[in-house]
């Protein structure tokens, strides 16, 4: 019974690893074949870290812009974005 359970979770894990791989920028560019779990895990960690850095950078740039901007026009811009999307 335990072997059945581990087989099921193994399939799930394989599928999840493959889904993660499809998200990674490197994979999207080269359309790579199936990478190892270890590689996908490493690339996922790197990707998350780079996304964190981007958010940090964008926060900085937004803060510079919003220093001189008043909140009402900021709100108006955001609402406009909402309608556009």
């Amino acid at each position, binding site marked *: 019974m*335990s072997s059945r359970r*581990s087989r099921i*979770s*193994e399939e*799930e*894990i*394989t599928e*999840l*690893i493959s*889904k*993660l791989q*499809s*998200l990674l920028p490197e994979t999207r560019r080269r359309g790579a074949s199936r990478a*190892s*779990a*270890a590689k996908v*895990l*490493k690339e*996922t*960690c790197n*990707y*998350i*870290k780079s*996304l*964190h850095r*981007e*958010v*940090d950078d*964008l*926060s*900085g*740039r*937004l*803060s*510079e*812009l*919003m*220093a001189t*901007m008043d*909140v009402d*026009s*900021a*709100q108006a*811009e*955001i*609402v*406009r*974005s*909402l309608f556009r*999307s």
Partner: protein
Amino acid sequence: MQATKSFEQAFLRHLLRGFRLSAVSYKSMSLQERKSAIKLSADVAMASARGSRKWTRGLITKLSREDEHRSFLRLILGTEYGRLTKPRHGSWKIPRSKKIVRRSLRVCSRRKNNLRAPHGVKSGVLARTLVEKRTHALKRLVPGGESLDGCSLLDEALDYVISLRAQVDLMQKLLTTFEAPKLRALSKCTLPERKASFVGK
């Protein structure tokens, strides 16, 4: 795999609210303080827009550990705050799931290694250690990841990455939107006014 339109709209809505709530202090803040406030708003907006997931709860819990964040979080999340930070009743299951994690990771990496390169026991051990090591690294990066087992961790990581990407895209779009009027204002200074030439005619 992408974030939904409703997530995007909810994110922008929450971000707007976050800006409004902390805007009072914006003018009096230092650049660094404003940046932290914006980043906090963005993270809360992302977690709030996504709803209840293990990583969103982990993120809110992590953010609320800072005293200065807690009042903002309570203000912007309202009743959601209590729900998102409440320890789940299933937390006592953690010790057991760790065993399942190790077992499933062992089986998974051993099988994986056999499928790819049927070497020997040594490479199997190496692969298993590498996967374990990388899994630990991922646990630290995904909010709330420390208490998750193999499948859940990967599932949450997947969801988290999709949400992070959307967060980056939306913040980038916002930046572009905010910069546009400034660019227009700049171009007005350098180019002759179209309206004036029209009126002239």
